[in-house]
């Protein structure tokens, strides 16, 4: 019941056809990923009811939003939408824009207004008109407004594109908590693999309007990794087992291995998703105790592939499958071969979420 079922076939232009038939989880953050022009915005617009599509069907959490001739009007769909482009009401101040959403908020316990305003740092801007805001300011107000309508489904189209790093760092964990605490599912369009792997529980990959892949982030991590030639990575699902406040570290268990990682306020028992860039894993034949690299996992080489200018090494370890990217020279130097035993070294700092 708790799912988003989508089936549509939309001919947007002569060249572009968006055709999807898929079921997305009705909770957590689903990342929608794909190149520019692959149909991400069009998909969100369809879900919101802004993009008509005859013959399509859409069911959200058991509620039929579109089927046959039946179609729920946009304003009857309990959603919040952060548009890709600026979309503030030009005739209202920032305060007016926020109030517009508050007055029409869906019933239920929402996120408190002051918290949202503070989080997005817009308290100083409340009296300004949108025209007098900077690009990032406008975007933040738009996010706040979408949250204030207290939606049951949040659609976000590259919401952080024009936010600075600091705000991003503040907002991402918040968004992460949002769906955990309030159980609001989020469909999140992004170009950034970092954002994607950090946030998304589930991923939908589009390519030229077609579904390229879909699945949990762990399932897709290899495929996703390869989608980013510059930053292949692997994902480990782990659970916090112990906290070491004196070192600002925690221990986390991934399968049967224990890993050190920075303590970013993690609680014991909390589940974690570790996103490890292949280039952050180094390989060593010996287990060297005298370095600053805390995580040294015994591992076995499963495959060695030369990609372009480097070597991708797939490893199995008792923490799970790992992916390391090393230079051709190192591969030669270490005489890497399938079945070889060695140590995979990962700096704890590389595991910061």
């Amino acid at each position, binding site marked *: 019941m708790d799912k988003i079922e989508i089936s549509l076939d939309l001919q947007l232009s002569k060249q572009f056809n968006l055709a999807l038939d898929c079921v997305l989880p009705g909770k957590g953050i689903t990342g929608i990923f794909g190149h520019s022009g692959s149909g991400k915005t069009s998909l969100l617009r369809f879900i919101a009811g*802004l993009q008509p599509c005859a013959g399509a069907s859409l069911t959200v959490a058991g509620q039929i939003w579109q089927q046959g001739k039946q179609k729920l*009007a946009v*304003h009857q769909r*309990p959603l919040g*939408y952060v548009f890709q482009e*600026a979309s503030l*009401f030009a005739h209202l101040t920032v305060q007016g824009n926020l109030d*517009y959403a508050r007055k029409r908020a869906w019933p239920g316990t929402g996120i408190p207004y002051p918290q949202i305003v503070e989080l997005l740092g817009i308290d100083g801007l409340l009296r300004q008109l949108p025209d007098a805001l900077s690009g990032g300011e406008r975007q933040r107000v738009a996010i706040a*407004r979408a949250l204030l*309508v207290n939606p049951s489904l949040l659609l976000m189209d590259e919401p952080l594109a024009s936010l600075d790093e600091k705000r991003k760092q503040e907002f991402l964990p918040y968004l992460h908590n949002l769906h955990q605490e309030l159980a609001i599912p989020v469909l999140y369009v992004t170009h950034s693999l970092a954002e994607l792997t950090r946030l998304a529980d589930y991923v939908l990959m589009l390519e030229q309007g077609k579904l390229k892949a879909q699945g949990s982030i762990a399932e897709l991590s290899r495929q996703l990794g390869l989608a980013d030639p510059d930053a292949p990575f692997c994902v480990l699902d782990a659970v916090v087992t112990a906290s070491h406040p004196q070192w600002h570290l925690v221990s986390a268990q991934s399968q049967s291995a224990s890993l050190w990682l920075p303590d970013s306020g993690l609680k014991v028992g909390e589940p974690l998703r570790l996103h490890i860039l292949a280039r952050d894993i180094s390989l060593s034949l010996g287990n060297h105790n005298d370095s600053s690299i805390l995580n040294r996992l015994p591992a076995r080489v499963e495959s060695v592939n030369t990609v372009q200018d480097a070597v991708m090494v797939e490893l199995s370890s008792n923490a799970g499958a790992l992916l390391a990217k090393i230079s051709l020279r190192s591969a030669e130097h270490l005489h890497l071969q399938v079945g070889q035993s060695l140590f995979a070294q990962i700096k704890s700092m590389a595991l910061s979420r």
Partner: protein
Amino acid sequence: MPLSNDDLAAIWLTLKLASTVTVILLLIGTPIAWWLSQTTSWFKRPVAALVALPLVLPPTVIGFYLLVAMGPQGPIGQFTQWLGLGLLPFTFWGLVVGSVFYSLPFVVQPLYNAMTAIGLRPLEVAATLRASPWDRFITVVLPLSRPGFITAAVLGFAHTVGEFGVVLMIGGNIPAETRLVSVQIYDHVEALQYSQAHSLSALMLVFSFIVLLLVQGVSRQNTQRKGHG
């Protein structure tokens, strides 16, 4: 040259008529303009052309046909009689109907343009913020097409004040009931009472100039903004 009682009555009547007509024009013109700006029906073009049609007929001719239509044998006349309202020509409400018909294009055009200029995005945003179509119309369309409303009101009001041919024909020049300033000036001119015509014209010009100046002031805010939205 002081104004006669007749002149004063005509001024008062003109203001009353123009205000009534402007209000009615906005009430009628707004839904028409909105429908025109939103519909994709093939109906749209004929309706738009129809609304603009009163423009091309000489006002006296329009007045003549209105007179026929609202007369005892005309369809409108039969209808108003059936309603128990009697006949409209030569009454204040007859003038209102005629003026509304005649000035409608001047109100619908600017409203239509302003509404079209809003674009879809603000409406889409409002819909995702749980605003119903009616709510969107009130809270988004109306405020964003404010310059159009000001233009529409100015054109509608001014055109009714200056209107003459229609009014002359269906009004019948009855003092304090259908004799407007425009007709009064015309009468002065016809009776070769030029100095009276001059002073009444001058008064109207000055008054209108001041009104227009004030309206410009109200609509001024919409300038001096940055380019983006």
